[in-house]
């Protein structure tokens, strides 16, 4: 079991059987996610993707991991919302235990974790892991 927030997303995705509906939902999640304050869109928070720009701001609150993120691509924003549900509010030492590939696979979105550098999701997951290990 992943976080409650992620399980809710997984349940919704279970109802959506074709890719178009899943992407429609993912895009809606992206549209609904609050944007990152421009003050945080600086080189230090930028994740090196190729096709789109991605920013990620991780922090610790009372031993819990949280991050905010943003992208200029709507599908990537949706994926950030999914990752937020997957990771946010986990105890920091549990972050490394999350199998992002397997969890995204449950949503049929694991293709975004492919070796391609261009979508930045893989780089985001790596950045989250690094932060939690610090």
């Amino acid at each position, binding site marked *: 079991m992943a976080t409650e927030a992620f399980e809710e997303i997984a349940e919704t995705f279970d109802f959506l059987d074709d*890719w178009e509906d899943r*992407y429609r939902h993912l*895009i809606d999640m992206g549209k609904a996610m609050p944007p990152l304050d421009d003050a945080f869109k600086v080189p230090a928070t930028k994740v090196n993707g190729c*096709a*789109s720009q991605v920013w990620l701001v991780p922090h610790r609150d009372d031993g819990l991991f949280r991050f905010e993120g943003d992208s200029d*691509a709507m599908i990537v924003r949706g994926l950030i919302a999914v990752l937020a549900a997957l990771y946010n509010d986990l105890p920091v030492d549990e972050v490394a235990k999350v199998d992002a590939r397997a969890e995204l696979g449950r949503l049929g979105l694991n293709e975004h974790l492919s070796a391609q550098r*261009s979508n930045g999701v893989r780089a985001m997951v790596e950045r989250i892991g690094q932060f939690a290990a610090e």
Partner: protein
Amino acid sequence: MFDIDAVRADFPILSREVNGKPLVYLDNGASAQKPQVVIDAITQAYSQEYSNVHRGLHYLSNLATDKYESVRGTIAKFLHIADEDQIILNSGTTEGINMVAYSWAMPRMQAGDEIVLSIMEHHANIVPWHFLRERQGVVIKWVDCDANGDLDPQAVIDAIGPKTKLVAVTHVSNVLGTVVDVKAITEGAHAKGVPVLVDGSQAAVHMPVDVDDIGCDFYAITGHKLYGPSGSGAIFVRKERLAEMRPFMGGGDMIREVTRDEVTWNDPPMKFEAGTPGIVQTIGLGVALDYMMGLGMENIAAHERTLRDYARDRLNGLNWVNVQGQSATKAAIFSLTLTGGAHAHDISTVLDKKGVAVRAGTHCAMPLMEHMGVGATCRASFGVYNTKAEVDVLIDALELCHELFG
């Protein structure tokens, strides 16, 4: 007679599906697919005719050398070059231009000397010159294209000053599709005593190229865009320039004699071909060029003009699509953005789900993207095997993007 069905049947990959949909391959500007004859030639070379080249007296070495060396003549025929000794075989345009930067430009440029570039250059025709700027104070002078993506040859010629040592321009823009009048640029530059390098990576794929007619000093091509293997390519270097060039890489093949204290060079073009080359890749390139010449470059160009006109009409009919580059004579290359929330990354992801392969990003041409005032774009670039029906699939997929992203 150009038979599109027969051409499509020559490319086995076109019959596969992607994401459950028939593949619509519109990423030819990045790299083209390979016809069966090229694939067979690679298999044949490795299974029956393989050895190192230029090095042995045995049967297979002679056979491989003959096959490999004959490609020089094929390239000369393809580019209309009278003397094939002016063709240096390499791994592609990036290597070709880097070689010119190192072998020809670097030793003859002082701080303050200039290279004139168009804003439409691919990074492969920018970064080697940035090396010279960084390392020895060479100045890069940029010539902009207009809002349509057209480049005025006179503007390039006018940018040439007393300190200009080279003009380096693309023949066809990989982003906008603009066809540059490289012959007029060469005439104007030569009148001022300045050599011209032409990046032919995109042009040689889409239209007949006559290098002797253009008159330029360097013309670079890349095999993987020409329906040939990756890691193959060539650069034409005019005899006078060859004589001025120092070797680029050192190693086997490019030397005549090596002693403890001295090296003497082989004659050009071998002088610039160090080490074991991409033997089979080059043989495959020769077969790919024969394949293109068999179809006829005029026929290929005519087919792609039809596709261009059809795609242009359909794209221009959608008021939420912005096509970058509206040059009247452009190649069938369409870089586009959508009004509203869709980023190039979003578009290409949805297109991929529909089986349509395009490139998303800045297309190794960041100065041009900045000049055009766009971030990332989606690029649909057409090739010899594409059809009007595939344009329709692209348009349908774009309509879905418009609906999804608003």
